């Protein structure tokens, strides 16, 4: 603060410490990048002409749309299941706790590929689905094939598997909220469900969103496994099929890789925006919630504000 009587001081402009290492590193990286680009562009085996030819091929574009549809549908199913099972595991009802635990145990403990094969075979294992009382009368009967086609099987397989992983992320998010928040809500007479919906989950989103974005990006590429169902319309299968027909697998792999990279980049932007949105009100230094189950040392690290974000499980399958 300068008072009106004192003149504005001349600001210091010291010369920065020279950092020649930066320039050396830049030069080395520049050379390496030039070599890489040169190698990519001049190597005739990549067949960039074929890449260009198929980049906007109708079958490829349809494959991109199917991949996106599978990703969105599977994540929607996964998030729904994850929130439900995470809340079930925190419930006072031991039956719900047990059901959620077994769900996570099974779907996280078996390979997603195996699960997809299973969902593909379900109409062989159970030709008929019926709704009724066990050993008693049946009310509705379906042909399994009519209900669970390849698309549904792929979404169920991916979504159920993803839900088990996301459930742990959601649970760690819910547990990361200071118990003072529960106490304040309880003391105000708020019900458990209201507290979860209005107080705990909005705060936990800050912890839940970053790893969920990570999971979404991971899911984008896991969709390539649905060939196990078999589901044959998504990007990886379509490009491979074209590559095999034309005996040019490499350029079509590049086509697929380009699309995965583009979509991932778009998802990263979306994830960044979501993180900023859920960071509301957390900028003050004195609002560091104490994290349950975190050691004293890690708590000190968090309190220092040097490590922003939260300690979440990295659980990419």
């Amino acid at each position, binding site marked *: 603060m300068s008072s009106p009587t004192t003149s504005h001081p001349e600001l210091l402009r010291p010369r920065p410490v020279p950092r020649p290492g930066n320039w050396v590193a830049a030069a080395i990286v520049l050379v390496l990048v030039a070599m890489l680009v040169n190698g990519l562009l001049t190597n005739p085996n990549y067949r960039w002409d074929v890449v260009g030819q198929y980049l906007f091929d109708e079958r490829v574009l349809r494959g991109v749309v199917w991949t996106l549809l599978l990703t969105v549908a599977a994540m929607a199913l996964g998030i729904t299941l994850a929130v439900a099972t995470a809340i079930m595991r925190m419930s006072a009802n031991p039956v719900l706790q047990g059901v959620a635990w077994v769900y996570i145990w099974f779907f996280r403990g078996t390979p997603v590929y195996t699960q997809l094969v299973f969902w593909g075979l379900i109409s062989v294992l159970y030709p008929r689905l019926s709704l009724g009382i066990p050993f008693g009368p049946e009310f509705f009967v379906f042909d399994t094939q009519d209900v669970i086609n390849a698309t549904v099987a792929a979404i169920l397989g991916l979504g159920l598997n993803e839900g088990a992983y996301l459930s742990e992320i959601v649970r760690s998010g819910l547990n990361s909220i*200071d118990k*003072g*928040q529960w*106490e*304040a809500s*309880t*003391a*105000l*007479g*708020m*019900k*458990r469900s*209201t507290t979860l919906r*209005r*107080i705990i989950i*909005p*705060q936990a989103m800050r912890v839940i969103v970053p790893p969920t974005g990570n999971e979404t990006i991971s899911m984008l590429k896991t969709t390539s496994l649905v060939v196990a169902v078999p589901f044959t319309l998504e990007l990886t299968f379509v490009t491979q099929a074209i590559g095999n027909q034309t005996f040019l697998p490499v350029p079509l792999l590049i086509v697929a890789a380009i699309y995965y990279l583009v979509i991932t980049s778009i998802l990263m932007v979306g994830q960044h925006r979501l993180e900023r949105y859920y960071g*509301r*009100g*957390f*900028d*003050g*230094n*004195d*609002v560091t*919630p104490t994290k349950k189950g975190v050691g004293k040392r890690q708590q000190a690290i968090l309190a220092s504000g040097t490590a922003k974000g939260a300690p979440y499980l990295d659980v990419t399958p």
Partner: protein
Amino acid sequence: MIHADGVHKFFGDLHVLKGVDLTVERGEVCVLLGPSGSGKSTLLRCINELEQISAGRMWVDGELMGMREVVKGDQVQLHRRTDKDLSRQRAKIGMVFQRFNLFPHMTALDNVMEAPIQVLGLRKRDARQRALDLMERVGLSDRTDHYPGQLSGGQQQRVAIARALAMDPQLMLFDEPTSALDPELVGEVLGVMKELATSGMTMVVVTHEVGFAREVADQVVFMDDGEIVERGTAAEVIDNPAQRRTKDFFAKVL
């Protein structure tokens, strides 16, 4: 208003409250004093059932907290209240915490509006008006749109008081409301509490502010080791204690 009758509390093997009897009349300000770990905060948390008592009876506003008595023939059984019933009981009791516990993702005004809308079912417009009035009462009309993280500790605690008052409680509990504050911010919070006491609110206050107890307490209760050692007016308990433990304590803090 409050009638605790032989209240015991165990945390596992730890005997935290050892048969506490306490009566607080409507409109009375009761200040609980005593060394750390004497059970003051636990007693306070038993009043609104944030902790369940292990033995005895806790009556608030003529109702047994957390339980109800069911007469079966010539026997009286205790049944736990449902979550819904307990929420109804707690909604009548305001509580202010040492660490404020404001909702960090909501503005100060939204913090105050939240429970009246969600619990009392007030319309948004009415809750807003009530919240604005209360923010004025605690002297924070110019901070309604700030998030808790942008407020000082004293301001946060005053928002927390407004939030509790928004439920139109019959009783206010204060759990060391100034202990987490920088010394220069203590006065503004005590000021709001004094105004509240003058307005006739029934209050139970756990604090280390002996001056506050002298000024506004109708009843001062000194606790040590899970028991009430001495009770009476501030003049009796603080300035002229009869018991050794009380004398030792005030000799140290005064």
